[in-house]
């Protein structure tokens, strides 16, 4: 049944009003003060004060140049895609604040060809593989036994532990590694000599989820933003 023009008038008015209200709401929400309303989720532990632009930086060129570049790519006139709107968030964004001279497992080391299996299983060459942002946690990797990917052959000549490392490896007790060693080696602590004294897995899981550090509060280096805040 076709409605008359008179019946449609209020309907059209409602559409227009809805569009205007929508645009106003969108404009207000896009203001920097309302960043938190359009983030993908809560910021990870320690990142509460970060602004969107700390990681999401504008891509090079104007919007028109970016569209043009990607259309050229689609037509085969350009070899690589161009970033659109914002640059892809990369390790460099994380390392701007978290780069440390003593990192025991810096991400770039995993680019070496011999870490192929680790890359296939964990992608440890990318910060976000373990620290996916907007999850409201510290470490987003759920399992603790990831050391298995690289340390199956680890042997210590002078093993300080009551149950030697090679024995723990033979027993596949991979969850015990983090009981003594923090992955990036930034905590100042004395490692335990007895396996019974190591930090229990539950405490490490709680730490991953944003809880207190079981490795203590003494750290060799603070993230740059934290230092600036002090």
């Amino acid at each position: 049944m076709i409605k008359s023009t008179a019946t449609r008038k209020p309907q059209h008015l409602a559409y227009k009003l809805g569009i205007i209200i929508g645009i106003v709401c969108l404009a207000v929400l896009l203001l920097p003060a309302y960043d938190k309303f359009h983030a993908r989720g809560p910021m990870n532990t320690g990142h509460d004060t970060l602004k969107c632009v700390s990681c999401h930086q504008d891509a090079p060129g104007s919007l028109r140049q970016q569209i043009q570049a990607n259309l050229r790519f689609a037509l085969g006139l350009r070899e690589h895609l161009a970033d659109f709107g914002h640059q892809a968030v990369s390790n460099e964004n994380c390392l701007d604040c978290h780069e440390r001279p003593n990192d025991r497992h810096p991400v770039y080391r995993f680019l070496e060809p011999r870490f192929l299996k680790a890359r296939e299983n964990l992608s440890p060459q990318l910060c976000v593989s373990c620290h996916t942002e907007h999850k409201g946690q510290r470490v987003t990797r759920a399992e603790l036994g990831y050391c298995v990917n690289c340390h199956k052959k680890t042997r210590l000549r002078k093993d300080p532990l009551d149950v030697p490392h090679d024995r723990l490896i033979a027993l596949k007790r991979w969850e015990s590694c983090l009981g003594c060693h923090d992955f990036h080696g930034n905590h100042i602590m004395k490692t335990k000599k007895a396996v019974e004294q190591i930090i229990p897995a539950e405490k490490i899981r709680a730490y991953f989820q944003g809880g207190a550090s079981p490795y203590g509060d003494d750290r060799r280096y603070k993230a740059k933003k934290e230092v600036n805040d002090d």
Partner: protein
Amino acid sequence: MTSKSFWITLFTLGCLGIYLFVSAPPPLDDKKTRQATIPVEQMFTLLQAENAAARLIWTREIVGEGKKSGLKFDEHWRDADLEAGPLPALFLRETAKSMEKSPVRLSLFLGSEYPISPDNLFEGLQQEIFQVLRQTQQAQFFYVPDTGLHTGMFADIAVAAPCIECHNKHEQSPKHDWHLNDVMGAATWMYPASVVTLEDTLKAVMVLHQGIQDAYAAYLEKVKTFAHPPVIGEHWPRDGYYLPSLEVFMQAFLQRTAQHTLPVLGTLSNSRQNNKLKESGHDTVE
């Protein structure tokens, strides 16, 4: 599609075409492909010669002579309670770490089949290629598909007595019968392009120089915390309990590498000019 909507669509597409292509600003630079003519293998070879020179100065003139004059070097040199400097492999690692801070995506690693630290043990493809390298002593080049990185492996040869003395004596070393000129391991270089520009090559050389400078600066910073630090200035450990300043160290390094590096860069520059001339149909430069 009605005639009206056809014309509206055509008009919109026409406007979009004019907006994007006719009145558009200059296209974005596709940096990854511009004027790249130098095979990355040549860049790796140039960088490795520089790296080998830096390692020789560090191993022979700082570590070797330094030990004789009372300086210490240790794998735990960064520990606050240890008055020591980095062993040669760790000096390279410091250099590589500094390079990673640069926007140039150049990586450097040192590995072996008998490393002191098990972290540096070759495995998989790298171990297979190292076997060829060890037998032929020829640099090996290959592509790693999952990272998209072009890779070059170069023999790390025991060129100075301190190399074999330390590895043969070290309690964590899995091999104690090293001899001078043995292939002790390999330096692995990685870069995300198969061909590079002369500008890329110059940038890579500058990044390596900066890395070497940062590594030596980190050592000097540590030295300043010693209870009785050596005098830092013009003199070298061969003269006694001294260390060269950052400027003196880098000057010595650059003097030694310039003889090799500048002619290579000149050749690369000429080959680029020749390519341009060939494209334009002119005679080439000898």
